[in-house]
């Protein structure tokens, strides 16, 4: 089982300027790592989820996600956009940090789901969010996220 995130899945300066393009841009990173069966299928699933209700949770954070057969293994891609992206967030603030989450329909292990649960909980911590917004490079982001993921009981 490979790590849920790696350096190639982190992009600190997203090029996209709208929600749809951000989803594609981050999904491309996941696809480049060979973790999707269908790029289009996965993106459609993520957008359908967005259409149900926004995943912009406020605090400048969005967590678009898709759980479907188009995903090979659970993965998180991390993107940041200083100017922010309109995500119809709960508090109306643009999203500056975007976690794109990919989960296969059926997982052999619960570990990845536990990791995502831990990440979700951690996002409620203001200091943690500040830390993510201030990071200077991909290595720092990776370190912060890996520390959380490693703390999950295996």
């Amino acid at each position, binding site marked *: 089982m490979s790590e849920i995130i790696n350096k190639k899945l982190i992009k600190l300066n997203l090029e996209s300027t709208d929600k749809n393009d951000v989803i594609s841009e981050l999904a491309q990173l996941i696809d480049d790592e060979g973790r999707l069966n269908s790029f289009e299928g996965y993106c459609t699933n993520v957008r359908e989820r967005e259409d149900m209700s926004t995943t912009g949770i406020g605090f400048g954070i969005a967590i678009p996600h898709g759980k479907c057969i188009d995903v090979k293994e659970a993965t998180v891609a991390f993107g940041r956009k200083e100017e922010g992206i309109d995500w119809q967030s709960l508090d109306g603030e643009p999203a500056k940090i975007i976690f794109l989450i990919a989960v296969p329909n059926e997982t052999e292990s619960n570990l990845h789901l*536990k990791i*995502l649960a831990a990440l*979700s909980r951690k996002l*409620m911590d203001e200091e943690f969010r500040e830390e993510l917004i201030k990071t200077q490079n991909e290595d720092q982001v990776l370190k912060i996220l890996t520390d959380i993921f490693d703390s999950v009981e295996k």
Partner: protein
Amino acid sequence: MMNVVAATACPSGVAHTYMSAEALERAFKKAGHNIKVETQGSIGIENQLTDEDIANADFVILTKDMGIKNEERFAGKKIVRIFIGDAIKKADAIVKKLESHLEK
């Protein structure tokens, strides 16, 4: 001090279930109350509420974005139904609202 139990669930069971649980725990504990939150997510049911937890609770908070499993456990209790988004964004306001209800 209030005793509160809650159960959270969201359609994909991946993220919001846990965010809302965390947000409620943080807000109620910060205000000096007891809270236990059961999560009904993709991992299954965690931190399951016991009969004793429920019996001792002044309020039961349930998210209403999708059905909560075994809801019959809460029959006869004061049930507050909230949207997950409100738990995440307005947990402090939920605490205050319940505090004012308790005083009455």
